[in-house]
Every structure is written in structure tokens, then in C-alpha cells.
């Protein structure tokens, strides 16, 4: 069954040819049928989604335009604040907490006529690459339920792949949108840092976190991107640049004639041969479509993983200090406040979150700051410089999204082995650049392979165009 496109649903609902209520009911029926097995959702918002759909239908009946997402169900990663609706980050420490405000992206989706259909599972506080670190149990890959969906936005990726929703929102700190998109065979895009407001995204590593879309097609991802992007005074890192509509960029997209595309040599090393084969096939396809494809070296990329696993835990240890049992979430009672903090945090956080808090606290502690965090920040500069040099010669860069296809549950119980899953996606987070993962062929196991297209800051149009060209050739 071919997935229904969000663009088509919205067009039909806006014209009154389809009711949003029917669209929502069809998706809720699929969720009821299969989410018991897959566990893409922490919470399905059946009543709220039906009510929102009826409001969209009522607007159409009054002759009003509900907006570009009219009646389209959207799966929200459960680290996006939803007013009055539980937002857990898949952590015991936030179980039952209901935020007093909506994230800016949640408001924008609703204002565009989109329907929040549920809160999706993730690795606790978005720390992981398999969704196995959720306190509420893992999500399963719709293509093979014995495999992980990737992570940390595994729930949103699986929800879109299983057609529980045509669109999903995730967050990407080191690959948490693109890697699960690759493993679940859907499109996932990380915008330029600052292009989408982070207001209401529960922070993991603030200088790296970015919200972005999941969809089954590049055009649908562009549709959602256009809705969520744009300046927001509530996020001080939000950029003021106005970008053209990406939906238009995709329409011209299959034309990559003359586009200069570089295959990043360093990101082709240590990658499974069946994944490398698909990336090479993608390069040939782009070349056949008129692009000028060549190899390029971005040498500092090889330090990305090490720098990331110092910077991200350091920022996480600072951001997660707020979970102390005082203002929200879990509290474990104790006779004095320090004991209350320490016992609450011990009971509320899972193993991976504790590990990263410990690593980050160590990297920031007296005597080690310069050697670890300080040095990692200087390496970040090297990575930015090497990308700058590459973008003098190329419009876009190409690489695998993930070193392998979806792996089995428990296959990467060693934390360092799991961290390696992000080796191709991390460099764009450190540089703040946009990147997309587009499904392109399958591996030897028959599971989806994702190919990544990266571009310079605010060059999302290039990312979407090249992504659309890849999709047309896939």
C-alpha cells in the first residue's frame, strides 16, 4: 500500500472533497490495529485529534481556509511540549507532567490546520540511536519488528513508516531525525541550527538540538518545514533570515543540472559495504541527472564523534540539572534537600542518561575543562572550517546516513558501539548545517538504506532539491 501524501490530503480537505474527521479516523484505525506491536506512541490523542479534525471541517464548511496542513495528522516526538497533555521525554522523571505551554512548532502545526495525533516514543531525553533507552519500552521497526527503528526519534520515524501519520516531528542533536528516518525507510530532515524555533523542545544539548520533519516524500517534508520554520522571538538563537518556500524548491527539484555534489571520503570509511553500494548508486543517479559529482575530503569529520561525545554530554549535564524533584515530575522524599535531589535523580533517570550526565559533569569539572570540553570546542571550529572549504567547491555533500541498516535489539549494548551509529550525522550538528536523509534502495537484508545530503548554512533549498532528485531516481 502506497502511503498517502500529506500534500494530497491537505488539498482535498481544503477543497471540501474529504473530511478531516475521516482522515483522522482512518489513521486512528491503523494505529489501533498495529501500534500494540510497534509502540510508536507513548500517547495517542484520539479524542483531541477527532475534535481538532471537526474544527478543521467546520472551518472549511464556513468557507475558511484551515491552512496548508488542513486535516493532516502529525506525530509529535514526546519531548515537544504540549499544553495540558503529558510530555515525558520517555523518562520516569517526567512521567505525568503536563506542560503549561505549547512548543512553538506545536502551535504552528495547529495554526496550519495540522492535527496532533499522538506523542511518540524516543530514547530517554533523546539520548540514544535505537529507542531502546525509553523508560516505557522500545519502538519496533515497521519493516522488521525484530529490529530497532533507530533513534532517538524512533517513534516518529516508525509512525510515519507505518502510516500512522503522514507527517512527524522529531529533534536531531547528533542524527536523531536522520538516522531513524534511514532505518525506517522514510525522509527525515535536520534544518540549519536556528531555522526552526526550539521554544518548547525539552533541551538536551542546546547548541546542537534542532527540530525537523519526517515524511514519506521529500515534498511532504518540505511542506512541514515551511510551516515550522521562521523567526520566533521566544528562541534567542532563532535566525531572522527569511527562506523561500521549500515546497517550491522541491517542485524544481528534479533539476540538479550543474549542481556540484561532493561525496565525503571520510564518511565512506567504516561503512557496511551494502550501504556504500547504495550511496555510490545514488551518486551515479545524480550524475545521470546532470549533477557534477566528485569525491571531496572533509578531514576534520573524523574527529566529529569524539568532539560530540564531549560537547553533548557536557551540555546535557547542565540542562538536566533542572530535574531535581522541586518544580515538576518525580520526587523521592528524603530528610534533607541534597538527599532528595540525589535520590530523585537516581530513581528518575535511566542508565544512558546517567552515563551522559556523569561524562558531561566529568568533562566540565575542575582540572578537566580545558582538556576535554575546551578542546572539543576548538575541534568544532576545525570541522566548520573544513566544511567551509568543501562548500567553496561544492553545492551539496553526499554520504551514508547510517553505517548500517536497522540492527537487532540488544546488538549494541556497548555504549561506544551505539555511539558509532551517529558517525555520519554528527558533523552537520557540530557545524549547524542542514541535512536530509532520503531512502535509497535496500541493503543485503532487504531493509531500507538512507542517503544523506548536506549543504551550507541556510541552504535548505539545495538540500530539498537534491533530496527530490534522489527520490526521483531511487
Amino acid at each position, binding site marked *: 500500500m502506497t502511503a498517502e501524501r500529506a500534500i494530497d490530503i491537505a488539498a482535498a480537505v481544503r477543497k471540501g472533497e474529504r473530511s478531516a474527521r475521516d482522515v483522522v479516523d482512518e489513521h486512528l484505525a491503523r494505529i489501533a490495529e498495529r501500534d500494540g506491536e510497534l509502540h510508536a506512541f507513548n500517547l495517542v490523542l484520539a479524542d483531541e485529534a477527532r475534535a481538532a479534525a471537526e474544527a478543521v471541517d467546520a472551518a472549511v464548511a464556513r468557507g475558511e481556509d484551515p491552512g496548508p496542513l488542513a486535516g493532516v495528522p502529525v506525530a509529535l516526538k514526546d519531548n515537544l511540549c504540549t499544553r495540558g497533555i503529558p510530555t515525558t521525554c520517555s523518562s520516569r522523571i517526567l512521567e505525568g*507532567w*503536563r506542560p*503549561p*505551554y505549547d512548543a512553538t512548532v506545536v502551535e504552528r502545526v495547529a495554526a496550519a490546520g495540522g492535527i496532533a495525533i499522538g506523542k511518540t516514543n524516543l530514547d530517554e531525553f533523546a539520548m540514544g540511536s535505537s529507542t531502546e533507552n525509553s523508560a516505557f519500552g522500545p519502538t519496533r521497526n515497521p519493516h522488521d519488528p525484530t529490529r530497532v527503528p533507530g533513534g532517538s526519534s524512533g517513534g516518529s520515524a516508525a509512525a510515519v513508516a507505518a502510516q500512522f501519520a503522514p507527517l512527524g516531528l522529531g529533534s536531531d542533536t547528533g542524527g536523531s531525525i536522520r538516522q531513524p528516518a534511514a532505518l525506517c525507510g522514510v525522509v527525515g530532515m535536520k534544518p540549519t*541550527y*536556528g531555522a526552526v524555533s526550539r521554544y518548547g523542545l525539552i533541551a538536551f544539548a542546546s*547548541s546542537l538540538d534542532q527540530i525537523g520533519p519526517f515524511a514519506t516524500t521529500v515534498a511532504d517534508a518540505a511542506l512541514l518545514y515551511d510551516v515550522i520554520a521562521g523567526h520566533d*522571538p521566544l528562541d*534567542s*538563537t532563532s535566525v531572522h533570515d527569511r527562506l523561500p518556500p521549500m515546497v517550491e524548491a522541491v517542485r524544481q527539484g528534479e533539476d540538479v543540472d550543474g549542481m556540484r555534489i561532493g561525496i565525503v571520503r571520510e564518511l565512506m570509511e567504516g561503512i557496511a559495504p551494502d550501504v556504500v553500494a547504495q550511496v555510490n548508486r545514488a551518486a551515479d543517479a545524480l550524475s545521470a541527472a546532470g549533477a557534477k559529482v566528485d569525491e571531496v575530503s572533509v578531514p576534520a569529520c573524523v*574527529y566529529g*564523534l*569524539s*568532539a560530540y*561525545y*564531549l560537547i553533548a554530554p557536557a551540555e546535557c*549535564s547542565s540542562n538536566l540539572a533542572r530535574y*531535581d*524533584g*522541586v*518544580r*515538576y*515530575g*518525580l*520526587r523521592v522524599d528524603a*530528610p*534533607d*534537600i*541534597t*538527599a*532528595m535531589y*540525589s*535520590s530523585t*535523580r*537516581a530513581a528518575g533517570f535511566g542508565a544512558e542518561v*546517567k*552515563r551522559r*550526565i*556523569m561524562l558531561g*559533569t*566529568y568533562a566540565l*569539572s575542575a582540572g578537566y575543562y580545558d582538556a*576535554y570540553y*575546551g*578542546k*572539543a*570546542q*576548538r*575541534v*568544532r*571550529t*576545525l570541522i566548520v572550517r573544513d566544511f567551509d572549504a568543501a562548500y567553496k567547491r561544492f553545492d551539496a555533500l553526499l554520504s551514508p546516513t547510517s553505517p548500517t541498516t536497522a540492527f537487532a535489539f540488544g546488538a549494541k549494548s*556497548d*555504549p*561506544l558501539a551505539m555511539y558509532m551509529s551517529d558517525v555520519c550525522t554528527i558533523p552537520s550538528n*557540530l*557545524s*549547524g*548545517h542542514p541535512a536530509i536523509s532520503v531512502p535509497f534502495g535496500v541493503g543485503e537484508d532487504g531493509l531500507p538504506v538512507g542517503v544523506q545530503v548536506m549543504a551550507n*548554512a541556510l541552504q535548505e533549498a539545495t538540500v530539498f532539491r537534491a533530496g527530490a532528485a534522489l527520490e526521483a531516481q531511487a
Partner: protein
Amino acid sequence: MSRINGDDVRHVARLARLDVTDEEVELFTGQLEAVLQHAQDVEALDVADVPPTAHPLPLANVFRDDEPRPGVDRDEVLAMAPDAADGRFRVPRILGEAP
């Protein structure tokens, strides 16, 4: 060369306000060691003359207009607190003396 021992892990856990069991100390000692071992490639680089990047965007300080506007509702916020009294968060004893 081992750079981290159990005492380091206990010290860091205290700084992070995180109770750890003996089993966790043992587990984290090995795992933190492995990650820092991997980070040796970064540690070994001579980047003394490279400026640090804290943030991907060249941002100056950001101001907003100094106009009053509604914030989040106090009662709604306190309703989500583990314990509250008289419009405030309530916490266990902070100072050493008995209540």
C-alpha cells in the same frame, strides 16, 4: 593507562547530585574510561591557536522589547509540582538545623 577510578566516579556523581550504587560505580568507571579513551584523538590534537566554537551561529546578544506581557499561570505551574504550599514550591529542609 586508566584515567578514571571508582573514587572519581563517586566524586562526579556527588557533583551531579546523583546517587550511585556500587554496581553503577563499577559499570560507569569502565564505560567512561572507554569513551575518554576514544576521545584521545581529540586530546592529542594541537589546537592551541584555534578559537573555540561554542555555537554554530555568529550571534550577538538578543534583546526584546521591554513590554509587560502575561507569563505562565502560577497556579497551573504549581499544580504540577511534587509539593507546593502558599503559592510556593515546598522542599525538604535546606539548612542543617532541625525544623
